[in-house]
């Protein structure tokens, strides 16, 4: 079951490149068309898919590839989101937004371009990961889960309380929004590519070694602490970027958005996609995001032939969502992809012999 069957028919390098280029051209054409012709609701969902892909990958890097159970994503996301919110909100709107307590003079006149604020958010999240990582990454697995979850809550509590920087519980509105797909999908593509490169590098192997067996990894000369901190910081950077895009998509941030249950969305994504699979995460991010939107009908009152079904009322969607998470963990533990990746060979093989699925091979991923 665990054995990876060697595919005898590996595509020639040239063909793979052609397919890769073809896929990218197709994607660009799709984004172009989507921007032109799709309505704002669907564009919004597609934007969200890209953002959730980034956050799913961020979480998978630390949980799936490095084997550290971290639940801090919502916190890192909040840092990125607030960086974008604080530094891109128009100067003239600030007085009306910060009406309870004016914005701190040190930052009240600083406005940054979106990209700079986005990067700043990522870097601040990585810095926070470094500071929190120093104490908590020495902890055993499950303590790490609680400590990171606690950290994510502390971030939220701090952001609720520093009124003159974050506007407290009122949040920040009027953030200039991005509504086309170029930003989110462009950045998602960059994140996916970097992730593929990272995982295929010596560092990626070192992360996987830590996941497989910490003691053996250490005995092979891999400094556990250093590599955990690196993985944690990269993951936080990605979450910060995702959070920044999230803020720019919604146009408003407030601390309640970053309640730690937000992290559970990304947990479902990586569990469903496969802990330790990049392509699985991407697929799953789309399935979960679109699924959550589609399930909204569950929260609406439903009547069939004039009889209203009492089951359908607000809250049902999240019940179904949590049952889904449970179901995947209990009955479908490896998720869609397990630790394997989608490759052209695999896709072609799938189409060639339809029902008869077999043969998986790491390599020839979507983006290289």
């Amino acid at each position, binding site marked *: 079951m*665990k*054995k*990876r069957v*060697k595919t005898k028919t590996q595509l020639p390098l040239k063909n793979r490149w052609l397919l890769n280029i073809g896929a990218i051209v197709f994607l660009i054409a799709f984004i172009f068309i989507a921007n032109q012709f799709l309505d704002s609701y669907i564009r919004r969902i597609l934007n969200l898919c890209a953002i959730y892909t980034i956050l799913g990958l961020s979480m998978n890097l630390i949980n799936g590839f490095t084997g550290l159970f971290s639940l801090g994503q919502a916190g890192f996301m909040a840092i990125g989101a607030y960086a974008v919110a604080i530094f891109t909100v128009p100067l003239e709107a600030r007085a009306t937004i910060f009406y309870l307590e004016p914005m701190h003079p040190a930052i009240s006149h600083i406005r940054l371009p979106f990209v700079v604020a986005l990067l700043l958010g990522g870097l601040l999240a990585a810095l926070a990961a470094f500071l929190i990582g120093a104490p908590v990454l020495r902890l055993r697995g499950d303590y790490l889960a609680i400590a990171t979850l606690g950290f994510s809550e502390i971030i939220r509590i701090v952001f609720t309380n520093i009124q003159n920087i974050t506007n407290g519980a009122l949040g920040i509105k009027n953030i200039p929004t991005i509504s086309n797909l170029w930003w989110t999908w462009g950045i998602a593509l960059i994140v996916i590519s*970097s992730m593929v*490169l*990272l995982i*295929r*590098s*010596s*560092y*990626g*192997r*070192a992360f*996987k*070694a830590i996941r*497989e*067996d910490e*003691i*053996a*990894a*250490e*005995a*092979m*000369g*891999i*400094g*556990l602490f250093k590599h955990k901190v*690196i993985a944690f910081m990269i993951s936080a950077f990605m979450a910060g970027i995702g959070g920044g895009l999230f803020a720019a998509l919604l146009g408003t941030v407030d601390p309640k958005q970053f309640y730690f249950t937000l992290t559970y969305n990304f947990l479902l994504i990586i569990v469903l996609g496969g802990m330790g699979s990049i392509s699985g995460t991407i697929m799953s991010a789309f399935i979960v995001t679109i699924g959550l939107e589609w399930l909204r009908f569950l929260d609406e009152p439903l009547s069939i032939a004039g009889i209203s079904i009492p089951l359908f009322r607000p809250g049902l969607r999240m019940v179904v969502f949590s049952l889904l998470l449970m179901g995947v963990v209990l009955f479908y533990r490896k998720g869609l992809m397990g*630790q394997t990746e989608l490759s052209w060979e695999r896709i072609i093989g799938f189409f060639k012999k339809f029902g008869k699925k077999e043969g998986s091979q790491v390599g020839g991923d979507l983006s290289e």
Partner: protein
Amino acid sequence: MSNVLQLDNIVMRFGGVTAVNDLTLHVNKGQIVALIGPNGAGKTTAFNVVTGVYTPTSGKILFNGKDITALKPHKITQLGIARTFQNIRLFKELTVMENVLIAKHLHLKHGLFSTALHLPWARKEEKEMRIECEELLAKVGLIDLKEEVASSLPYGQQRHLEIARALATNPKLLLLDEPAAGMNPQETSELTHFIKNIKNEFDMTVFMIEHHMDLVMEISDAIYVLDFGELIAQGTPDQIQQNEKVIAAYLGVEEDA
């Protein structure tokens, strides 16, 4: 002959239990030295002290004259001591090649960014790493299995792979913790050749814990015997075989092999 490893009066206590008491030994360059003793004699504890898994309660460990007491395991590996484990600890879900490549990570010259982004010079380094690993796998006879997942290998080959992985760190001293554990006579004799070959091929110094007396007596240059954490004898295989204390404590009750 120069001293590669030197243990001076090592004591290791866990709470009230003394696992290793006042252990002094040395391993000479180019030799195969065995540490034997009944189960629970403190052999693995001694290994864990040498490789930095435990910090000794007292005593000193010198590696090529350098004090390595209380260094972290990865630092000790970086200095040139590699080990295997009693109950094989491979990276089970990864391929044979990946297992060996991981052991090369500590020699990485380029930084995180060049490596992660596969910049040209890092690509070159990766290529060299792969060539070295393929050569190593060819030498130990695992090259045909390089794309197989480690856990799918037969038991004997998993042992070989674990030794190959340790060798990939380019060690000066190789520590083998019961390499023949759970092996049948056929596999054991293969392993005996394997270790001999490694010693010659890589000009390696080997320090090992082993229960299989045939193996120990055949390839060891020197033997130390531990019993209840105390060193009770040391010498050449012939001397040990005739030592009465050893016969009483160990050989007399020896069951496996």
